[in-house]
């Protein structure tokens, strides 16, 4: 998998995240402050940097600026602030993505995967095909039987999460965690209503499903309509 440079001053998070990312198969180099992070970013040439903003020596935003001056390594910023202006500022400073605390290891992994995919640094096929459904993960374009489908961001992410595991039943809990970053405590109805919109836009209904099949009490499965091939 990827080589991750983890810059995090909180020892508990650093340890837990290092363990989780290694469990996911990533190589992790962890540092606790800004200056060693810059050195490591230059010397170790990681695939992605996960940068916490609250560092003891240098402000995380300054580390980001300095990093951008010497390297084009993808950077995911971890921040406790969720206001829009802060997000815009970080993206303008050169962050490739951001993740808001408190996050789960699965969310961090998903972000890393998404960033690497956008950078073209993954072996994953950027185009996922399920029957007549084609999802281009680089251009965020979806077509059904050649007909383009306009999807909202969450709808796209939901479809993508299901398409990655086409044929499998994906629980709503997993979807909440991956798409909405609500690991626990989110509402199933959030998934339901977006599924309904997805169905509507894909031209099907719950009673007459083609691609999206609800499995009562378990979750949702994305599968090609009968008579067409998958992938």
């Amino acid at each position, binding site marked *: 998998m990827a080589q991750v440079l983890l810059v995090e001053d909180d020892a508990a998070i650093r340890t837990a995240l290092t363990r989780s990312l290694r469990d996911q198969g990533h190589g992790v180099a962890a540092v606790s402050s800004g200056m060693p992070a810059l050195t490591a970013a230059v010397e170790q040439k990681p695939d992605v940097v996960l940068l916490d903003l609250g560092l003891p020596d240098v402000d995380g935003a300054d580390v980001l600026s300095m990093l951008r001056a010497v390297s084009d390594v993808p950077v995911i910023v971890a921040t406790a602030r969720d206001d829009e202006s802060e997000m815009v500022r970080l993206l303008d400073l050169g962050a490739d993505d951001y993740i808001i605390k*408190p996050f789960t290891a699965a969310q961090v992994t998903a972000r890393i995967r998404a960033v690497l995919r956008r950078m073209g640094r993954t072996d994953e096929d950027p185009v996922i095909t399920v029957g007549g459904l084609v999802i281009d993960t680089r251009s965020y374009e979806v077509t059904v039987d050649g007909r383009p489908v306009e999807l909202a961001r969450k709808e796209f992410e939901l479809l993508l999460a299901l398409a990655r595991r086409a044929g499998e039943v994906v629980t709503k809990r997993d979807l909440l965690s991956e798409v909405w970053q609500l690991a626990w405590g989110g509402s199933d109805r959030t998934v339901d209503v977006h599924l309904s919109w997805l169905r509507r836009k894909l031209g099907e209904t719950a009673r007459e499903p083609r691609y999206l099949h609800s499995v009562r009490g378990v979750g949702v499965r994305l599968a090609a309509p009968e008579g067409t091939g998958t992938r």
Partner: protein
Amino acid sequence: MRRRILLLVVGMTALVVLAFAVPLALLIRHVVFQDATNEVQDKANQVANFLHFYATPTQAQIVAQLDNVTGDRVASVQLPNGTVIGQLPPGSAALPSVGRAAGPGDGDHGGPPQTAPVSWHGGKLTQLGVGQAPGQAPDNAEGGQYVVRVYASNAQLHSGETGWWWLLAGSSLGLLLVGVAGGELVTRRIVRPLTHTAQTAHRISSGDTSARAQADGPREIAEVGSALNRLADRIDELMAEERETVADLSHRLRTPLTALRLDAEALRDPAEAERVGAHVSTVERTLTAVIHAARRPQREGRLPSSDAAAVVAQRIDFWSALADDQGRASNVELPDQPLFIRASADDLAAAVDALLENVFAHTPEGTAFGVTLEATGSGARLVVRDDGTGLPADAMIRGRSDRGSSGLGLDIARRCAAAAGGSMTLGLSSSGGTVVTLEFGAP
């Protein structure tokens, strides 16, 4: 205050007017009476001059002269033979003797005798004895002379005052009105900025911290206005600092919470991991709510408002896809006109979502629901009802996870309504379903 200042001005003006009017009235009374008395004497003098000039006038000439000169005064001429022409004054039985102080001697100097009028029977009486030609023997008790009497009652003597009284009363009233008008002008100048300042204070105390007073008017009152503005600014600063501190503390809590979450995930027992994870999620949601509330004024301005009709319509449209999928009929009644309420679009949308989510979470598929939004006298009323079997008993308990819903739904709706100056009530419909009514205040 306005009334008191006006009363003071009217009182002061009245006192000043009185201070001038009373002596003036006494003076007028005296002058008019004196003039009238002098007139009585003049009339007597004119008749006396006539008698003196003609020496032996005929009775007809005397009558004509009396009518001509004395007018409505009681006047008479007593001939040397005692015959009286004209009307004698009251108390004619015992008239005072006619002084001959002037006597014919005065006539020698070519003028009538002069006798000052005397007070007589509630009036003034002038009696003039006009002497005979020299050498003519007196042939009557008065020494052979003509006696001219002119009498005017006090009422007649004072009758000339009426016009003056009217003039005095009119000018006094005029002055009083000028005083009232001046008082009103001054009062307005003082009271208007003061009233505005008071209104501003009320608005600030009712939560509108953007309200500011106009620092104008008299210096002391302008000072009150600017002091109030400084106070409001300070309240604003303190509140902003307080909110920023709360938000900052909450943000800081997110870091240990992240560690907690990651550790919870790493627990070996999945059931335990989920349980601890759910607790972490609850803390996280609460924290997010605290930050959200602390940042609210920054986001929405001090007085949030939104078009409830548009927001509710948009949220119903959002849930319509799921309603269609689940075969739920919906009865939606929304006003055609925009309906503004005192809640931000985000908060209202969250409240509507929470209520609709409850409908989907707590009623079986196919159950119909209805949404009504209507204007009320004080804002708007949103009613969400379903044909289900009523709310579960624990639906109102905060943080309780109920059948996959957040369990915070009703709490979110209740807080939104309360923040908008309204309230939430729960009830049952005639079919036994749940009816949630949210009242919102106008912005």
